[in-house]
């Protein structure tokens, strides 16, 4: 077992077949499927608990957790895989929500079609944004998406014909606190996390990780860097917008207050709070933030204050996230923890 020395983190190289315990010699995707089952079990247990508990508060909290998990997964794809930060996830979520309402209320389409329309609108927005923004890196990309967030927030307030303005837009035929919708949302969340889990092992996923590790190197071995960067944004935005459609199914009405910059920052803090593990980090970050947020609704402003304090503490002092702190090194090896993003050094003897 590799020892981790505090203060001197060793680069963890991608695990070769045969590295690790005997049970881990299964083919990659099959091995990863065990994680999918575990995630599914977590969601299933939570859904059963919520259904048995039966209170509106429990259902609402669980639904918010599921939706938030989807948003966190969408940003995990951008930030965790491709190191492309986004401060606009909540705005894209809003675009999906408004498109879904419009499709259902004015075009009268059934819910699955509205879902596809919402996801398509997110993808289109992602394409339009990513083509110019894919030139920007790191914090400049964050600033570009910040501009997008604020532009969309302003548009939500002032495009009253489409969004209902600050008063919000009522949702036709919404199912408040319904368990079937909860199950659909949990199913989507499980699928999103499993998708990320397997993307890690796929050809495309490895290409994205290569771009993250070293763009020049990736380009030099024939990876189309720009195309990948654009694709990641498109898929991530489609996920966020699809989550927006699911949100409308459970909300009586939506208003621009649901899609603010603060919400985008909350998604970001949840991703970093979770840590670098794609699956468990997404789940842990979303869960931790949802619990803290549900606990702090008693006092207005407290949840925002908490978000600010968490941004400072988590980003500044816990860059490894919750899973980085809480999961012992021995487990990390079993869970084939993702490698730290730093130039991989040659290990002696390898």
């Amino acid at each position, binding site marked *: 077992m590799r020892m981790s020395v505090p203060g001197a983190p060793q680069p963890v190289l991608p695990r070769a077949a045969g590295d690790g315990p005997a049970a881990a010699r299964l083919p990659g995707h099959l091995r990863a499927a065990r994680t999918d089952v575990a995630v599914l079990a977590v969601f299933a247990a939570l859904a059963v608990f919520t259904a048995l508990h039966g209170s509106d508060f429990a259902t609402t909290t669980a639904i918010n957790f599921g939706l938030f998990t989807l948003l966190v997964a969408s940003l995990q794809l951008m930030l965790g895989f491709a190191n492309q930060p986004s401060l606009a996830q909540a705005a894209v979520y809003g675009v999906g929500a408004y498109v879904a309402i419009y499709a259902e209320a004015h075009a009268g389409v059934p819910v699955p079609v509205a879902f596809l329309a919402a996801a398509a609108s997110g993808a289109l927005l992602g394409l339009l944004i990513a083509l110019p923004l894919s030139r920007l890196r790191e914090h*400049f990309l964050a600033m570009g998406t910040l501009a997008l967030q604020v532009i969309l927030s302003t548009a939500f307030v002032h495009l009253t014909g489409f969004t209902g303005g600050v008063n919000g837009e009522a949702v036709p035929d919404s199912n408040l606190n319904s368990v079937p919708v909860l199950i659909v949302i949990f199913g989507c969340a499980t699928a999103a996390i499993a998708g990320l889990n397997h993307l890690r092992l796929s050809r495309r996923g490895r290409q994205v990780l290569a771009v993250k590790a070293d763009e020049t190197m990736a380009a030099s071995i024939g990876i189309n860097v720009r195309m990948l960067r654009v694709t990641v944004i498109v898929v991530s935005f489609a996920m966020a917008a699809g989550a927006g459609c699911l949100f409308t199914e459970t909300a009586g009405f939506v208003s621009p207050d649901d899609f603010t910059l603060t919400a985008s920052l909350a998604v970001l803090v949840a991703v970093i709070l979770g840590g670098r593990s794609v699956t468990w980090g997404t789940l842990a970050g979303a869960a931790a933030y949802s619990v803290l947020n549900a606990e702090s609704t008693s006092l207005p402003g407290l949840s925002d204050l908490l978000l600010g304090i968490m*941004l400072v503490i988590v980003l500044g002092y816990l860059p490894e996230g919750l899973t980085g702190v809480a999961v012992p090194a021995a487990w990390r090896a079993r869970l084939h923890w993702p490698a730290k993003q730093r130039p991989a050094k040659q290990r002696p003897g390898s």
Partner: protein
Amino acid sequence: MNELAGAIVSSVFLGTALGLMALAFTIVYTVSQVFNFAVGQYMILGALLSTAVHFTASPGVNDLIAVVLVAAMGSATYLVALRWPETHGAKPLTLVIITFGVGIIIEQVAIMAWGSYPLSEPPILAGHFLLYGNLVPDQGLLLVAVAAVVVAGLGVAQRRTIVGKQFLALGANRATARYFGLNDLVLVTLAWGLSGAVLALAGTLYLPLTGVSITTDLSYGVGAFAAAVIGGLGNPGGALVGGLIVAFVTNLMGVYVNPNLTDLLTFGLLFVFLVFRPGGLTGNVADLVGPRA
């Protein structure tokens, strides 16, 4: 004519305030490549503090007290929230998001202390005169005069004084600057304090013209960011020019097209600059975007 004159006057005042904020932004960016997204909060906090102490101090002195307090807060922000991550390998993105967190904390604490309704801050100069039928407050002229002195002074100080050169050296390459014996802890803390002082100055001088409310922090903050990017990050004179551009574009848009769309235009302008000229009007693009693939 009257309408245009009024728009120009208010644009000059807003632009000067945004320019000062962009200058504060650029001071921190020059030294440590960090965007400080709490600029809007510090600026308004300056005005709030100055309002809070105006009964106990004579006009002008209360502003100075606020400037000193906010400067101390700027330094404290760096020492408490940013120093440790910065020295432990945090990326610029992380530091930027931390400043967002600091901004949220300041905003929420200010709402608890002062509420979110606009307060009126007493100006230093209460007089005004008429220009084409528009009232021009003397306080605005004071703001422009102070801003001109501050921008010119800092521009000269950056190039002519030892500390200014040390700031530039730290920004160019912190590791090398440390090998040459610069104390980066003291210098970056100083830069954050200076930035806080400039922000408080902008707030205490400009906000008597409009009213003080902490909830406007984001629009001032991102306006200042837009001004800094447009003017070219790291360039004090450019910051002022950028502030004036942002203010003129948004105010003229507000008067002649649709006041609801001013925010949209500011951020649209920011977006266009980020994509096509991330170095601003004056800056160098090469170090801001990655290799072309």
